[in-house]
């Protein structure tokens, strides 16, 4: 895996991730999130997790982002006008985030395995989908079915929530 490509995609992910929370227009935020997730999918593929990368593109940049854009267009949200900002609360939130960032840097810096390179894989191609499928339907069959029930419950819940209540 090329180091150059890693830094390109990492910067793409981080810059557009920051654009999500810096944009005032919700549509621009949603489109930045699409680019950020595409960069993240490329990072997954650079880790030889091809199946997860494909799922990331299909589920997030395909389904979830269409849902976000649909809701933004449906509610006709405009860019929020500059309201009075509570500087004390904002500074507090930013301080907590920065302290958390410092904590992550210090933990990763002291982790000995974090300075090792990734071990090489045996072949040039690995049977990614086959191995995940074997684990999913073998060892993790019960959790898989429970997740199926969860998705069903979410579907019914969404239908109930968006039904107009009779007055």
């Amino acid at each position, binding site marked *: 895996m090329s180091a150059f490509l890693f830094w390109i995609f990492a910067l793409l992910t981080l810059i557009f991730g920051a654009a999500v929370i810096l944009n005032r227009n919700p549509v621009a935020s949603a489109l930045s999130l699409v680019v950020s997730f595409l960069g993240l999918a490329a990072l997954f593929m650079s880790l030889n997790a091809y199946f*997860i990368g494909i799922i990331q593109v299909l589920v997030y940049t395909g389904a979830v982002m269409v849902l976000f854009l649909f809701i933004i267009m449906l509610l006709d949200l405009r860019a929020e006008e500059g309201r009075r900002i509570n500087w004390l609360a904002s500074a507090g939130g930013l301080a907590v985030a920065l302290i958390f960032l410092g904590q992550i840097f210090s933990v990763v810096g002291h982790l000995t395995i974090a300075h090792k390179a990734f071990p090489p894989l045996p072949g040039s191609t690995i049977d990614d989908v086959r191995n995940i499928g074997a684990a999913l339907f073998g060892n993790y069959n019960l959790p898989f079915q429970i997740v199926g029930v969860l998705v069903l419950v979410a579907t019914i819940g969404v239908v109930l929530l968006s039904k107009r209540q009779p007055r």
Partner: protein
Amino acid sequence: MITLGDYLIVSGILFVIGFAGVMLRRNLIIILMSLELMLNAANLSLVAFSRFRVDSTGLPDYDVQVFVFFIITVAAAEVAVGLAILVALYRARQTTDVKDISSLKF
């Protein structure tokens, strides 16, 4: 040479971006997007550890990738429910600003 630490740092910065979005923004849709960023940052560090920990057959740890698959599924369900709540809220109050929704505030 790219090490495990580089991926962990990228994942940590992405998580902090999402965290700052939840703390600083007041639009509920942007807060939901920031939640997605945080979930994906966790996924990135999980996949990096999966690639780092090769087992005796020399393959990555696929149990972790199954876990990431479950996280993606639950996150998709969570977004659907969250946006449905948002639409119901907008229908009742005509706003998506968290500052305007203070009925439960003590």
